[in-house]
């Protein structure tokens, strides 16, 4: 399994709803947009494996609702549970990668307390994870039941066709065109995990700009060092 690249890099494209290819995930996108517009559910639990675009969607929510905050728990090494203090005053709190703190009593209690404060303040909370709440391994039963309380949304991985469309959408938003054959070539020769593919696409874009060359299969082979 490929490592997820540092978010600072993978999300530099200014993740928004417009550049998320929803495919089979239309319902989740619909619910999150509603949430970002201050409607719909107060608590949303969004789960799906790596590469389904959870972080992307959370950034998109923050873009729409300015009074929001994003917490990447994948970076919990440099964060502390106390940083959840006072966040209930934000219209939306987004917590990414909840699995990172499952089983950690201090963090679990902090999230539980935040949950209660958000409930009392009438604001909104979105939590993402790679498994559904019941499988998360949270020890604090009070927190588990609260996670189950909200609207649970499952993000599906795109199939190859969807991944090709997502790559092409990404390319268009970056201002270039990804021909079908090159896209299919990328999909057949690489780990087909979307965040890695996006990263590769960014590299290719920069390389083709630098070399003043079009994106063709031979060029891609050269840049990415792929074998036949």
């Amino acid at each position, binding site marked *: *399994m490929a490592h997820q690249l540092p978010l600072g890099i993978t999300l530099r494209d200014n993740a928004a709803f417009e550049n998320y290819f929803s495919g089979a995930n239309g319902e989740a996108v619909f619910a999150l947009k509603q949430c970002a517009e201050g409607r719909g*559910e107060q608590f949303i639990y969004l789960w799906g494996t790596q590469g389904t675009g959870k972080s992307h969607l959370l950034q998109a929510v923050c873009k729409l609702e300015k009074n929001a905050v994003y917490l990447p728990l994948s970076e919990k090494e440099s964060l502390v549970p106390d940083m959840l203090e006072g966040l209930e005053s934000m219209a939306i709190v987004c917590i990414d990668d909840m699995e990172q703190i499952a089983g950690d009593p201090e963090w679990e209690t902090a999230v539980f307390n935040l949950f209660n404060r958000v*409930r009392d303040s009438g604001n909104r909370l979105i939590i993402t994870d790679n498994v559904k709440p019941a499988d998360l391994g949270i020890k604090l039963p009070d927190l588990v039941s609260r996670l189950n*309380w909200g609207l649970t949304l499952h993000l599906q991985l795109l199939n190859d066709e969807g991944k090709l469309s997502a790559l092409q959408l990404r390319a268009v938003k970056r201002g270039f065109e990804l021909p079908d054959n090159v896209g299919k070539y990328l999909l*057949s020769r690489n780990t087909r995990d979307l965040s890695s593919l996006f990263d590769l696409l960014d590299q290719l874009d920069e390389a083709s700009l630098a070399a003043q060359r079009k994106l063709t299969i031979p060029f891609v082979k050269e840049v990415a060092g792929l074998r036949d």
Partner: protein
Amino acid sequence: MLSLWQMCLDRLEGEVSSQQYNTWLRPLKAVEDGPTLRLQAPNRFIHDWVNDRFLGRIQEIAHVLKDDDPVSITLEVANKEPAFQRKIEPEIALNKSFSSAQARPKNSPRPESNLNKSFIFQEFVEGKSNQLAKAAAQQVAENPGETYNPLFIYGGVGLGKTHLMQAVGNAMLANKPDAHIVYLHSERFVADMVKALQHNAIDNFKRYYRTVDALLIDDIQFFANKERSQEEFFHTFNTLLEGQKQIILTSDRYPKEVTGLEERLKSRLGWGLTVAIEPPELETRVAILMQKCSQLSIELDSNVAFFIAQRIRSNVRELEGALRRIVANANFTGERVITIDFAKKSLSDLLALQDKLVTIENIQKTVAEYFKIRISDLHASSRSRSVARPRQVAMALSKELTSHSLPEIGNAFGGRDHTTVLHACKRINNLRTEDSRVEEDYKNLLRILST
């Protein structure tokens, strides 16, 4: 000046990653204070982070934007006044424009009592599992401070303890609108007390909690091992009881079993009436679903309600979560009538016992079992039909169900070339349309692997 902050933000948004921006800069609130722009962070940690990494840059940008009329920018931790510090007379809020920007939704609590108005007795679905607790709560609401004091409600998570407790508070308010009723989670009590100690305001804290008409504290098991809070609560408890003021407490277990509490406190918790809420039985679960639906103006056939209630047994929160899932799905798809099939489909993720993680190893194992061959045959170089076909099927499944690349898949099958994998995928695809047995095997395997 606030537009200056907006301009700073716009500039910063282009300079840092959107993640950094959303984590550290968005939560800052700007307050205009004479010639100073005061930035408020929601807590000490965010304050320190911004101070170390961004404040210098923010000041630079502001300086460039307003070099004709320099502004000083300061950073502080937003000091949210705890309830006990709030004065009765309306204060002129410095950041009024910001606080009013957040409109409260309908069911938000009254700021003074923290009660959620939707938690009332009429909305509480009664069943065998909770009727005793409800009856006791209603008694208390009619004669606060007299019949059962304290009222101690205990039971597992998500069974309606908070609802019942707040229903008493709301009923008391309905009878006596100027009653001073305070609901809070035990964590808030602890946190406020820490603040009071820090700010030398412990007397205000004591006065505030000891002069309420009713004190409702949720989840008191979270007082465990917090000796100082327990002691303060112990005295508050005694004062209120003497003054015949109502106390209602909830916990996940029977008072004597709450660990980490002082003995003298434990024994007092049981002085009044202790009632349990049990998990709702099937009929109550159905009734809860039907009531939720009528609140949402959704028609739910009782057969469907039974279907859901039979599968979601543990607690009310999960039941409500399941219903939310179905309703959201119906809203999205425009489905008017919720049938059992529709409910089943909407809940398929939640109902599945365990989501299997599909790996190449898992696929190889399953395929080998299915075709009654050894896993090592899949890695071996033999081209005999009896193992070559299953091997191709396994490769095609790996391509379909995992994110691995063709070279990676080839590697996992005894170091084969990616063109071999590509060939296998094409071959199986063709065979599936030509040979119904291959199609059936493939479908069976897909089902085994993905359910």
